[in-house]
């Protein structure tokens, strides 16, 4: 190959222009110099022009070079300790002595590549190299333990790819990686196998500071109920120590043992079994160690699923009353746990232990918004079942109007009030003082609107607001003017003090002049009122058959006074710190006060719709029920049973992946006293529950999850009852992360009967996976799985991964652990380096130009006479 090239060869065409010009005017020259001198002048000028045109055309010398450009990749992730830093420094001290003409640059990396440096990295003392995050003063002092986002992971692959991009052509490229090889992201081997340049690897020791970590909590993915299994806790330590190993099942401590730890791997096995939980998280913690550096890696968890009898959670205000139902269910093979409202699950993991949640006579005011949201997620996304039973605290009476749970129920809590029911006159007294500003006043307005909406057409309502003064927001008027009342309520604005007595007095006056059968006042305040004879007024109202309920919002309210007013006023007192509960309280109060939502006349259930779910239950023989709560069915629900008046008794519908049902009577002695002695009682409830609960069938579907580097791979093998692969199915995966964020995806079919997907797991904690396999639109199989994401993989201190480093070096053509002296040693490899010649060409042209001028200014024939002198007349010569 020619060792020259042109960058812009097309500019050589200038020669085609230049040559004729030079020659033509040489021929037609008027110069009188001797011909020979003129020829020399032509040659000189031609050379000059040639040199300039060559420079313009980018005449370049290509010369082979063995000079190297060595890119040093320095792993600065958390797993590399101070010993590693020392090793690198020693290595570089020895290697950089032989740099010679070779060039070197440094690229620190962690979970992502840092910024390329031309200055040598003083390893372990210059954390700012990792980027802005490390510029804190603390990082400078203790870089090795400073937790920086960039250091919390190792992405060898990304660093190697970036290094290749930074290496300039014209040098023999070389990448040298200093690392412990414990990658948490990317696939270094795959990247190395595609690398166009050799990658040498120098192993670094992992942390040598005293370190103990819980590396793994190994539990079987699925066990049978009661089956003994081992929780295997692997603890890695780099020194001999002693510590307390604790194993928790959920929040309960199951095991606490003092154990000796030896340097290396320590495996402890603890036998456990799961009796009642469906999903159990086993966490192991090691504490009380003599020495340990990183504390974040002292705890890890594993999730185990238990297959067994279906489980139902019943929440009942008075747990003793629902026992009979629980016994009846257990006889039919359904386990029932009963808890009071305080035991309502706060987390999805707790609720996931059950196939169905049943609320029996639990008011909405006893539940938090979070609990309701979890229940909705459990039904909608995880396919759980939900049943609400009737009672004086259920449906509308429980304040569920417009609540999250009403949304998932197949019936509405509002209803058409019957004509024969007594009319209600209600006054809402709302505190609009300055302290109510923000959420509180907005919630109060929303609550007042809901209350007005819940009233029947013959009912009347007025709204008063007070601060230092009392304002009539909405005159007493028929509740049918819902739009007008709502507009008027919207005008309430907070500001001023708190003087409640005149407002209460005005409410009394208004109701005294109202011709309603029932009269009720709801007072809402968040502060302490100026004094007044509240109790006397309450007494006076009671004697006028006006009932008073009070609502205290926030911690600063005078709950003692409000409670006393409610007691004397024969109403109810509520205290809440969460303004979001106010609408539920008002809704409950309104429905309760109107005394219209309950019907306590005995009735025989009417079968409206025959269903397979109630086969073998002889509804004809079902005895009387003694009462129920009035509701309205939602348009798409299935009403299975109804009362004699046509109100829904049992209705259900599908909500998301799950199913919910409403039974407006109850399952205890108040209304179902006759039913409890009915032989079909147990069967009826078992079948209703089996219909509504989550159907989980483990057979025919094998789920495997693997997690690595911030993502999890899911493989589902699906086989029909006959053992044939299920093909063409739609396998839907719902992942609910620890912050309850939902992500849905469809699995891709990878082989006959096999479906795969992967999803990111960026957050620590329990991830719930719900897998639904559908064929022809019908869910054939459904499975739940849990995936525990523990602390960062970077903190899982493992020995140096020499295997990986050797492989990376070999597949890319590099060397494993090359001696420092060989770092810059010449190799056989050479590359061509282009050297642009234009400066030399231009300089040469300039030098020639002096000669060129000289040839015009000096008649050389005078000094060195030629034999024949031609030329023009002497007067035309130069000056």
């Amino acid at each position, binding site marked *: 190959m020619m060792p020259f090239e042109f*960058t812009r060869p097309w500019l050589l065409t200038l020669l085609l*222009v230049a040559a004729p*010009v030079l020659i033509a005017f040489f021929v*037609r*020259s*008027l110069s009188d110099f001797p011909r020979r001198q003129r020829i020399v002048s032509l040659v000189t000028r031609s050379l000059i*022009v040639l040199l300039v045109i060559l420079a*313009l055309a980018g005449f*370049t010398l290509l010369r082979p070079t063995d000079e190297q450009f060595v890119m040093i990749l320095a792993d600065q992730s958390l797993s590399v300790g101070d010993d590693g830093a020392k090793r690198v420094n020693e290595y570089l001290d020895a290697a950089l002595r032989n740099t010679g003409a070779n060039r070197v640059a440094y690229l620190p990396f962690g979970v*992502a590549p840092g*910024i390329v440096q031309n200055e040598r990295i003083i390893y372990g003392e210059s954390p700012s190299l990792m*980027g*802005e995050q490390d510029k804190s003063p603390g990082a400078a002092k203790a870089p090795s333990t400073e937790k920086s*986002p*960039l250091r919390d992971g190792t992405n060898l692959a990304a660093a190697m*790819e*970036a290094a*290749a*991009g*930074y*290496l*300039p*052509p014209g040098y023999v490229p070389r990448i040298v990686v200093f690392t412990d090889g414990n990658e948490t992201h990317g696939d270094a*081997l*795959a990247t190395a*196998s*595609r690398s*166009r340049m050799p990658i040498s690897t120098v192993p670094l020791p992992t942390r040598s500071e005293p370190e103990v970590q819980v590396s793994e909590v190994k539990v079987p993915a699925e066990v049978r109920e009661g089956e003994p299994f081992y929780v295997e806790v692997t603890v890695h330590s780099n020194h001999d120590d002693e510590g307390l190993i604790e194993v928790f099942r959920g929040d309960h401590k199951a095991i606490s043992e003092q154990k000796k730890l030896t340097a290396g791997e320590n495996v402890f096995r603890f036998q456990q079994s799961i009796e009642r939980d469906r999903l159990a998280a086993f966490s192991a913690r090691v504490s009380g160690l003599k020495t340990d550096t990183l504390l974040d890696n002292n705890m890890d968890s594993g999730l185990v699923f238990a297959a067994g009898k279906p489980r139902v959670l019943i929440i009942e205000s008075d747990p003793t009353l629902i026992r009979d139902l629980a016994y009846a269910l257990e006889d039919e093979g359904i386990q029932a746990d009963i808890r009071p409202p305080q035991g309502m699950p706060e987390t999805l993991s707790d609720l996931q232990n059950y196939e169905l949640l049943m609320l029996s006579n639990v008011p909405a005011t006893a539940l938090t918004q979070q609990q309701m949201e979890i229940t909705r997620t459990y039904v909608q996304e995880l396919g759980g079942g939900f049943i609400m039973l009737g009672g004086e605290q259920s449906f509308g009476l429980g304040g569920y109007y417009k609540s999250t749970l009403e949304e998932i129920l197949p019936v509405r809590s509002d209803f058409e009030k019957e004509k024969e029911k007594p009319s209600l006159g209600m006054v809402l007294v709302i505190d609009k003082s300055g302290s109510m500003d923000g959420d509180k006043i907005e919630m109060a307005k929303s609550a007042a609107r809901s209350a007005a909406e819940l009233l029947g057409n013959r009912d009347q309502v007025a709204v008063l607001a007070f601060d230092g003064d009392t304002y009539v927001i909405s005159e007493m008027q028929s509740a049918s003017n819902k739009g007008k009342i709502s507009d008027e309520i919207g005008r309430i604005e907070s500001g001023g003090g708190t003087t409640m007595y005149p407002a209460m007095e005005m409410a009394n006056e208004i109701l005294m002049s109202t011709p309603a059968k029932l009269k009720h006042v709801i007072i809402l305040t968040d502060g302490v009122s100026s004094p007044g004879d509240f109790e006397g007024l309450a007494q006076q109202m009671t004697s006028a058959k006006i009932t008073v309920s009070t609502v205290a919002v926030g911690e600063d309210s005078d709950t003692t006074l409000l409670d006393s007013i409610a007691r004397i006023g024969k109403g109810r007192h509520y205290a809440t710190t969460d303004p979001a509960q106010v609408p539920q309280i008002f809704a409950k109060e309104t429905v309760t006060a109107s005394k219209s939502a309950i019907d306590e006349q005995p009735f025989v259930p009417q079968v409206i719709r025959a269903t397979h779910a109630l086969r073998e239950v002889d509804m004809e023989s079902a005895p009387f029920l003694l009462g129920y709560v009035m509701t309205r069915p939602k348009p798409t629900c299935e009403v299975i049973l109804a009362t004699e008046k046509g109100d829904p008794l049992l209705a259900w519908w599908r909500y998301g992946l799950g199913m919910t049902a409403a039974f407006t009577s109850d399952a205890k002695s108040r209304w179902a006293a006759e039913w409890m002695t009915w032989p079909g009682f147990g069967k009826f409830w078992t079948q209703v529950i089996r219909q509504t609960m989550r159907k989980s069938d483990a057979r025919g579907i094998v789920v495997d999850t693997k997690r690595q580097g*911030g993502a999890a791979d899911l493989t589902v093998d699906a086989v029909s009852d*006959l*053992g*044939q*692969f299920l*093909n063409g199915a739609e396998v839907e995966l719902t992942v609910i992360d620890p912050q309850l964020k939902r992500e849905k995806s469809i699995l891709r079919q990878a*082989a*006959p*009967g*096999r479906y795969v997907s992967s999803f*990111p797991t*960026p957050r620590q904690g329990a991830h719930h996976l719900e897998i639904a396999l559908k064929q022809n639109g019908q869910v054939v199989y459904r499975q739940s799985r849990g995936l525990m994401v523990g602390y960062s993989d970077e903190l899982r201190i493992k020995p140096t991964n020499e295997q990986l480093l050797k*492989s990376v*070096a*070999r*597949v890319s*053509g590099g060397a494993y652990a090359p001696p420092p002296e060989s770092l810059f040693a010449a190799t056989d490899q050479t590359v061509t380096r*282009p050297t642009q010649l234009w*400066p030399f060409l*231009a300089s040469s042209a*300039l030098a020639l*130009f*002096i000669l060129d*001028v000289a040839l015009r*200014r000096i008649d050389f024939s*005078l000094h060195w006479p030629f034999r024949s*002198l031609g030329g023009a007349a*002497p*007067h*035309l010569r*130069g*000056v």
Partner: protein
Amino acid sequence: MSFANPIAWFLALAAGPIIVFYILKLRLRRLPVSTNLFWKQIYDEKPPRSIWQYLRHLLSLLAQLLLVAFLAAAVADPFFAWQLLEARRIVVVVDNSASMRASDIAPTRLQAAIDSAKALVEGLRFQDEMAIVLAGPRPEVVVGMSGHVPTLKRALEEIAPSDNPTDVESAIELGRQLIGEHPHGEVVVVTDGCWDAMVKPEGGQEVKLETKLAPVTYRVFATEAANVGITQFQVRRSLIDPLGYEVLIAMRNAGPSEVKCRVEMELAGLPVDILPLTLKPEEHWSRSLEKSSLEGGRLVAKLTQVAATASTSGDKPTESKAALNLLPTDDTAWAVLPEREIQKVLLITEGNLFLQKVFEANPLVRVETRKDFPDQWPADTLVVLHRQVLPLLPAGNLLVVDPAGSCDAWDLGETIENPIVTELDSASRLMTYVRLDNVLMPESKQLKYKSPPKVLAGAISKDAIYAEVTRANGKCLVLTVNLDRGDLAFRTAFPILVANALGWYAGETGELRESLATGSTAEVQLDIASQGERSAPLLRSPSGREQTLFPPADDETKKNTEESRNEAPQAASSISVGPLDECGVWNVVKSASEAETPLMSLAVNLASARESDLRPPREMAEQTTAESVVSNWLARPLWFYLLFAACALFLAEWFLYQRRVIT
């Protein structure tokens, strides 16, 4: 203005000699003439020292000094500060995925893309830098940051078409990384737009340096070209039929016309099936086919006879076969069907025809029946002990039926007359397809196990009737029923129990050898120790390229050679092979001999519905900003213009001097 090479201003000293030449009083040449009468006349007509005469001299000097100035200034390499500030850092991402092989844009999409990238290189300005990154399954840097145009062009010319899928986003991410916080950074993607946005784990993204991300512009080289392709081809052994296998094949007609085609399938060179198909426009078609074969081998599916249907071709008579199916890469797909291994069974019984026939009926079982214990227990053989039990059970897989004695795993108890199965581990694969609830199990033996077994079927008395015994030296199942006394329900269930047990002993290995997608790497299990070969195995690509998987153990010097790519440490039995970037069957072979049976085969297909669809998404086509990186005035360094001016002046000055306009 600054100068890269200010020392070159010394060259301006050349002006010195030129001025000296100018003021030099030259000696006139002496020439004898016959008369000087004419001189006077000429002097009268034209005064010899006119103003022009002086000016001519000055202009001449000026031109010469200007030439010195141009040349000296050029060598000093001047540049404006803004030129440095405006310098760009460009990363060109070249998509060389399989779909870029399509020839709807002549000669191919890839070539058009490369040509366009070359134009970008040509447009590079002084101080600009460019890197070229390939968007394969992993981003691959072809050339690092450089401003040298021929180097960049050579790098572009080296880019070859591939069978790989695309991950443009990772390449863009790498490009942005290379650009860093450069104020004039830009990523230019030359692609056909046939790629999907990938879902990235969030973990890596959360910790990025907060940099200003360089803008990305796309140049799309694609038309609405139609293509029919095989988008999935997998084979899996049946779980129930020992000889059966199931093929999953998916096709995609990514075009606006209905097409007819045929899929021809061959197993080890023999035709298996021919599927005539009519694919509607945009149809994703998939089907699973059940077949049977003991041998296994290479399964190939070929798409042939692609033609427009009568109705479509009537509308578009000009539509040729090639126009319906533009990409050949996805017209053939491969899969590897694992061979079925024959299971050896040693049945030790004093004679039970039913038991013997149950094993013999299984085509994958080779039964040897003996009445007494052998002197030496054969390896790799399932031992079935009927009634007879040794005090010390032999190692390996064991099935004990109706044990008549005690051994190291249990003590024999009493006979239970007519136990009924009440407890059943229906979740166990050993109990698949059998229902033993309430089935009578006559003359069951009560065994007192030394370590608690896993009960598969148990009686109401809590005694295990069928159980898995936990032991360290092999799998063991015990069925305590008297086969001769079993009722019909049990006799029907027993062969299924045995079939389940055989599958359980054999494990699930070999049931599925998944066909891989191009560009992937695979972990393969190779029993290196048993090879007993000194030479390292080779990975042979479908086109015959060979790569050594292991370097010879004692020859460390060879490990840095090109050949040693794709190898893994000698001791490991799990080896990473790849990148498998070519469609077809890759073989791991012992040596370079052609006829040799491969140690392992891996089928690799394009298997990407997105790559098979050659049409770019509309928004991608709209996003195209074709002239994002354009050169402008002063794209070249100032020295270039100075030299250019000097060149012109040299010629002009030549003319002026020769024609005596100046002297």
